[in-house]
């Protein structure tokens, strides 16, 4: 759905742009070509790494390890796990819900969901290409800490 919309918008934009000003459109396509070629090798490297991690790190096993007796370590493990994996929300939420029903720590689930969306350890190389090392490492590490803060506040409120 998202993919169809974004291709539609990009295609329509190109057609309109071409009709109005060919020079600007050529500039836009050159921008696309340059950006895409410079990104492609990193993207293949990231995706290949993801393939390894998802193959050898089953989600069920890790989420099972963060039960209600895991304590603070369980929350940290959940946050680390959420930082590494790249799973879409429509898979992550039902999975998280089933573990919550089975008695997982609500703090661990909150930490997992928050780092899942806000921290992307595997896309750090890609993010660095756009924003530099300093910004990327800071954004991800501060987001990680804030995810833990959110998780512990939620643990207190939802107790």
């Amino acid at each position, binding site marked *: 759905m998202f993919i169809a919309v974004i291709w539609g918008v990009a295609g329509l934009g190109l057609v309109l742009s071409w009709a109005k000003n060919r020079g600007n459109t050529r500039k836009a396509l050159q921008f696309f070509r340059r950006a895409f070629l410079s990104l492609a090798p990193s993207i293949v490297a990231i995706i290949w790494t993801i393939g390894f991690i998802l193959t050898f790190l089953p989600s069920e096993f890790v989420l099972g390890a963060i039960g209600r007796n895991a304590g603070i370590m369980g929350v940290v493990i959940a946050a680390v796990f959420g930082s590494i994996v790249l799973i879409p929300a429509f898979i992550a939420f039902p999975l998280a819900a089933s573990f919550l029903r089975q008695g997982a720590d609500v703090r661990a689930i909150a930490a997992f969901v*928050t780092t899942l969306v806000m921290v992307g350890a595997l896309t750090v190389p890609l993010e660095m290409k756009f924003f530099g090392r300093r910004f990327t490492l800071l954004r991800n590490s501060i987001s990680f800490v804030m995810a833990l803060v959110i998780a512990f506040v939620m643990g207190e409120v939802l107790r």
Partner: protein
Amino acid sequence: MKIRAVPAILASLAAATVLIWAIRPDKALAVLFVSKDYLLEMLCILPPVLILCGLFDAWVPKRTVERLMGEASGIKGTSIAFVLGTVAMGPLYAAFPIGKSLLDKGASLYNVAAFLCVWAAIKIPMVLFEIKFLGAEFALLRLALTVPAILFIAALLNTFRMNTSRIQ
């Protein structure tokens, strides 16, 4: 990642895959299949995003972005960052080129950082989905804590960046 590091990493990944192939062919196949799925997803998403960034680069004047989201744009600029991040769909890596284009066109670092974090964390359909599965109490509390956390992260990133520019 340095440009030169990428071929070395790709070579190690290829070597590791071959090694696993020798021991457990099924696992090596699984690695390649998972990778193929993600590669197709990224190849579907990144080209149109980069085309839109190219069009944005070619057509939108720097002055406009500076006025709407620059250092002097105040709450208005941050609100625009929040709206852009919330209504957009797609994975976070699609937001990187867009955020970079905004930054290059004169949007403030604070607003771009807020845009990235909002894109990552707050999406209307995602919130509804979270309410459905994890309950309204959980989802809305997490949302209520995420908004101030994002403003805090953006402020901190902004401060650190200002410190570096002062040192240089």
